């Protein structure tokens, strides 16, 4: 059980929730969150937006039953966190683009900070795509070298992948595929890492409901992922 420290509404449907929870979370990892007993059945996978030794925070978008329950939590309420789960973005350095669509921007705050902390000489350009209203741009700006925001259009239009050593992306599958094609077209498909948001049940690798077909056979999005080389999952 973790205590809610704050749970702030950022826009029509984006919220930032901070919880008290001892952790050592890697960039790109997620937690299974649960703020109810019996209904709905499944806990909800949410990426760590930020994580310190005894706090984890989550950027989430209300899309249904579970996230709506989250949005009604108040400071002092309790939530169950299971995690951190899954693998992390690769600990690389150099010039890195991180491209998030919608709430897929969530992991890149932690990712940008972690890479900057490990190799301050790295250059990080963040590309954030929103459908109606940009949020947390100041916070993201503090984490990265540049932040490019697109509201209502295609964030993938803004980026030239050939300029980067690595590209990380998270967001709607269609957006990630478009980006992969763009990378492939400029001969650098292998630079791209994606975070797959498959539906999950156990979150720990036991039930196989989150399997991703990859060029190396099935992989579990929750345990072998969520981060994969794009060529592994889209290169089929």
């Amino acid at each position, binding site marked *: 059980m973790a205590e809610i420290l704050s749970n702030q509404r950022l826009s029509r449907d984006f919220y930032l929730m901070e919880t008290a929870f001892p952790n050592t979370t890697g960039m790109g990892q997620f937690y299974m969150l*649960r703020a109810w007993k*019996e*209904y*709905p*059945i*499944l*806990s909800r996978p949410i990426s760590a937006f930020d994580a310190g030794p005894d706090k984890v925070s989550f950027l989430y978008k209300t899309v249904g039953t579970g996230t709506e329950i989250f949005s009604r939590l108040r400071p002092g309420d309790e939530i169950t966190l*299971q995690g951190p789960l899954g693998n992390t973005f690769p600990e690389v350095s150099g010039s890195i683009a991180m491209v998030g669509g919608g709430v897929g921007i969530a992991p890149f705050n932690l990712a940008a900070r972690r890479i900057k902390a490990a190799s301050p000489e790295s250059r990080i350009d963040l590309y954030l795509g929103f459908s109606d209203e940009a949020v947390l741009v100041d916070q993201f700006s503090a984490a990265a070298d540049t932040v490019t925001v697109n509201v209502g259009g295609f964030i993938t239009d803004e980026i030239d992948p050939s300029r980067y050593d690595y590209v990380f992306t998270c967001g709607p599958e269609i957006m990630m595929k478009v980006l992969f094609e763009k990378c492939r077209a400029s001969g650098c498909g292998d630079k791209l890492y994606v975070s797959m948001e498959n*539906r*999950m*049940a*156990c979150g*720990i*690798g*036991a*039930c*196989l*409901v*989150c*399997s991703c*077909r990859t060029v190396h*056979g*099935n992989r579990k999005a929750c*345990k072998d992922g969520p981060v994969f080389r794009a060529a592994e999952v889209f290169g089929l």
Partner: protein
Amino acid sequence: MSDLLKTDFAGIPFKNPVVLASGTCGFGREYNEIFNLEKLGGISSKGLTLRARAGNEGIRIWETASGIMNSVGLENPGVRGFIQNELDWINSLDLVNIVNLGGHSIEDYIEGTELLNEVRFDILELNISCPNVKAGGMNFGVKTEFAREVVRKIRSVCRHTLVVKLSPNAEDIVALARACEEEGADGISLINTFLAMAIDINKRKPVFENTYAGLSGPAIRPIALRMVNQVAKAVTIPVMGMGGITSWQDALEFIMAGAAVIQVGTGSFMDPKAAPAIADGLESWAASQGLGSIGEVRGIV
């Protein structure tokens, strides 16, 4: 843990009657990182097939009111892969090792059983009822006479204790259970998932590529409990009950309805420590009631 929960199941001793259900716990490694698996009575492996399978395409999980639908489609490493990579590890644990075997043809079942004859484990759980395999896997579990035939053939080759896992989609689950007993099954487990459907109204298409998928979880518990009760009354071999068990109270209902052992599937997704909590809860309850053994309330309803 005291002896209150010790349970004999067809000659196999369980330290307690709580087992992780097939397909919801892989081969146990992941849950063993969350709690000590040896707290449980047993574990039933992911359903194996003779050859490795990649499972179904498309969405594999869908939430419904107090239930989940899954369409994993028996993704598994095959009997040989299991024997090579998982069996020794499970055998190294102090709990009952149940191997769940699925199939698409009688030949596959027989060949799988024969391969498994060569290795050590405690119980073969014959899944004649997986609803997620198009190619007929279902039928064995629906019609009594098909089930009878599979069980007869497998019994004649199988050297392990044989438990047949029944489908709630069976036309007459009581008659089917009796047929299993007549053909020499050592026990019955039930229920597998209910054949069910969900439609994506925006896409105007079924959610699942196979159209139908398997429903499990608390939603179906009252039906599962009724079936366990009917079957337990109809056969003399022991019964493993499951279907929506999430708490020790639920487990106790199944035991009172006649189950010797209970399995926890979907419950582990709601709380990864549900199964050991159920074992603890049953033990405290039995102690609080002054029972000598949990067996005293088995089948009292």
